[in-house]
């Protein structure tokens, strides 16, 4: 599918979904969108994620195939690379931690350009930067939302809010991650659209989650800074959800925009296990990263190691015995 239909389908899907949430609440179905849908979405999310990861886990890793990007362990006096060629479990954990927390492989990214037919390679960190800004903003935004789910806000959430609002501008205080998440997403979306190669490989599966997240972050931004709502009523609803005693009477006091926001979040949760967003869990399981480069020191077991037809030495000697004897090669049977 080419760019336009892919993009427009995704955009339309997000717009319609937002409309369902917003319009549904405005038309009096706030309880459905505010209570039933979130529970259903959470169930699908957790169930789907567990099912998907279990499905991955059910397939064994027959061979130990780490991508070695650094010096192996061989002779003691050769300085080895414990991160890019991990030998011990601890080193693997370190490699994985750097991968998960800092997107280390992306940090190696280069850009290839041709100069008169000669390729030249330059470090290219824009993708890494956009990814880091988006993912960490997202994490902070998620953690900040805990204040709406826990009746007594935990100290660390308050601390995060303080740090995030370090600029101390605006009322309510403006959070760096409010703009960070939007900028990161817009950046990722625009490179997807503007870079001809990335546009060429992009599917609706790529535009939809980006636009969905943009819809969520955008509506959240509006709710906090522009078209505000009764946050205490929202918290009554969300705390009620979290404590399994939904506060349906709070719904009437809440801006329908909130339900547009909430519905998109529910869709994101429900969509998550069936999409590329599963890279969240998958990154931990990648056999090229999470295995030690110690294949020659410790035997890796393949549970389905197949029985195959071999060509044994005896069969070989039967084929060539006379020729071997002619040139004086030793044989087993004369």
């Amino acid at each position: 599918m080419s760019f336009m239909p892919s993009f427009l389908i995704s955009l339309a899907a997000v717009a319609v979904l937002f409309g369902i949430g917003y319009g549904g609440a405005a038309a009096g179905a706030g309880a459905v969108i505010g209570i039933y849908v979130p529970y259903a979405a959470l169930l699908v999310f957790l169930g789907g994620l567990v099912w998907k990861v279990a499905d991955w886990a059910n397939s064994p890793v027959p061979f130990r195939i780490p991508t070695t990007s650094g010096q192996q362990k061989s002779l003691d006096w050769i300085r080895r690379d414990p991160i890019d060629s991990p030998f011990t479990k601890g080193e693997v954990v370190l490699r994985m931690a750097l991968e998960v927390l800092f997107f280390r492989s992306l940090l190696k990214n280069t850009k290839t350009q041709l100069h008169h037919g000669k390729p030249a390679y330059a470090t290219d960190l824009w993708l890494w930067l956009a990814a880091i800004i988006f993912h960490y903003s997202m994490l902070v935004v998620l953690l900040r939302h805990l204040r709406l789910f826990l009746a007594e806000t935990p100290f660390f959430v308050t601390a995060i809010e303080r740090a995030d609002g370090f600029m101390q501008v605006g009322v309510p205080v403006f959070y760096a991650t409010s703009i960070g998440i939007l900028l990161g997403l817009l950046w990722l979306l625009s490179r997807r659209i503007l870079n001809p190669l990335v546009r060429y490989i992009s599917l609706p599966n790529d535009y939809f989650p980006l636009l969905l997240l943009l819809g969520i972050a955008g509506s959240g931004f509006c709710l906090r800074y522009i078209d505000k709502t009764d946050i205490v009523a929202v918290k009554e609803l969300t705390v009620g959800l979290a404590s399994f005693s939904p506060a349906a009477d709070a719904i009437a006091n809440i801006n329908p925009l909130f339900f547009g926001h909430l519905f998109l979040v529910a869709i994101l949760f429900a969509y998550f296990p069936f999409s590329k967003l599963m890279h969240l869990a998958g990154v931990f399981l990648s056999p090229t990263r999470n295995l030690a480069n110690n294949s020659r020191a410790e035997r890796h077991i393949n549970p389905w190691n197949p029985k195959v037809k071999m060509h044994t030495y005896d069969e070989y000697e039967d084929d060539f015995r006379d020729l071997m004897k002619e040139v004086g090669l030793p044989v087993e049977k004369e």
Partner: protein
Amino acid sequence: MSDKGKIFLGLIVFIVAVTYPMWGGVFAKTPAPDVQLPDGKCIESRDYMVANHMNMLDEWRDKFVREGEEIYIASDGTEHAISLTKTCMKSGCHDNKTEFCDKCHTYADVDPYCWDCHVAPDQVAPKGGN
């Protein structure tokens, strides 16, 4: 290679983390604030005030301190003095910070900096003044 145990453990950790909102508040059930509203009418509608009072106060501060304006004309045309303590918190309205402001702010984890400068009427020593 059998790593199902590790994967299972990872899943458990993930589920525990994701459901934190559901178990994190089990032992600390603070009820939603039950705010006593004074009799009479506020300068704007309840809904508007609930969502936007912080912006109104923010604008008031700028108007009063920086532009010298002293009067706010509400949407129904009535005029009100621009003053936190003399309008909003005057006696008979929201004169009790602890019972009115703090209840929601604490619940929603909001930490406004009004009180860096202002002193709430209910927290002033009787003979003080500001």
